[in-house]
């Protein structure tokens, strides 16, 4: 960081911004490519379950929106001394925050599946049954939610105890874990639902 009181030229500002952002962007690039490989490997499932592709951006964004804000709240609570950075001991506030995040993630995933079904029906586009889409969103939402909540709590607590600012770790943890595990669990959920319910129609 340059001294805050000396005005910087455009080139100096640009150079500093570039240097500071590149490492984080490169890490999330690798995670993004990995999740792309999972999506690329889902071709068969995408063909069988019409409408699944429409669900993908909403599903991935929900991970970021819900657990990004959960992580930010957790970081603030740690800063304010409202919670202790320990998983064990069953802190009341921590349990309530985790439950709220999981419930939000599930509700929004199911809402996305229902909305996908109705939009595709209204537009007369091919779509899987409502049950198939909702079942996939529920299973994938619950599994990825559990992994993300655990990852956020463990990484933020461990980072805080080692003296890192939890505010700066939350974002990268959520985006990298969220994209990769989000799509992996989506793939798993599709396979489970197809095995139980048969073809998506």
């Amino acid at each position, binding site marked *: 960081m340059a001294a*805050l009181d000396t005005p*910087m*030229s*455009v*080139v*100096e*500002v*640009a*150079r*500093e*911004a*570039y240097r500071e*952002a*590149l490492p*984080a*962007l*490169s890490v*999330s*690039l*690798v*995670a*993004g*490519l990995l*999740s*792309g*490989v999972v*999506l*690329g*490997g889902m*071709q068969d499932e*995408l*063909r069988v379950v019409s*409408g699944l*592709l*429409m*669900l*993908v*951006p*909403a599903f*991935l*964004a*929900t991970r970021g*929106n*819900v657990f*990004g*804000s959960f992580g930010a709240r957790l970081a603030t609570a740690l800063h304010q001394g409202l919670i202790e950075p320990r998983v064990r001991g069953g802190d009341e506030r921590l349990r309530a925050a985790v439950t709220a995040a999981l419930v*939000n993630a599930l*509700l*929004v995933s199911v*809402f*996305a599946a229902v*909305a*996908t079904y109705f*939009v*595709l029906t209204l537009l007369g*586009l091919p779509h899987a049954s409502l049950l198939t889409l909702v079942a996939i969103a529920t299973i994938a939402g619950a599994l990825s939610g559990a992994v993300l909540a655990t990852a956020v709590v463990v990484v933020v607590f461990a980072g805080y105890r080692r003296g890192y600012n939890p505010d700066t770790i939350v*974002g990268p943890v959520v*985006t990298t874990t969220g*994209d990769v595990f989000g*799509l992996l669990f989506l793939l798993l959920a599709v396979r489970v639902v197809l095995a139980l319910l048969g073809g998506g129609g």
Partner: protein
Amino acid sequence: MLPILFVLTLVELGSGLVLDSFEATLLQFPSLLVLVPVTIGTAGNLGSVLAARLSTALHLGRLSFAPDDEVLAGNAVATVALSFTVFPAVGAGAWALSALVAETQLALATVLLVATASGAILAVLAVLVTIVATYAAYRFGLDPDDVVIPVVTNVSDVLGVVVLFAVVQIVV
């Protein structure tokens, strides 16, 4: 919290609908399918890094929303420069990884061109969206730290898919 999440989900479904409409092309060329999450994710990351920096500069009193503001211009230039660094790597990575998992292949040059062109357009759009959202938050007396990043990442998801779709229509 929940009403905002529902609204953001509806925004994302718009991006899903665009994806759904070019599903046939995506399934035909898996390297394009591999590009989807990383392209929309990187566009959102470029925007949220810029948003965090502008918000901090605003809080420190170092940012004015004038066209000749050094902080604004420097960060905008850095965002575009970052996109020209990161997106060719995105294209090369998507091409190489899909070569491992799929049979049908686009040429490396095609995938590089799709990724780099989409990235450049998205960087400019991310800069515009971020500056407008930060300015709006500032004018309405909201803390940009709270509102700008969700707006920028979700809007980037939609723009990412639309731009990717447009570039694929022209290039592939």
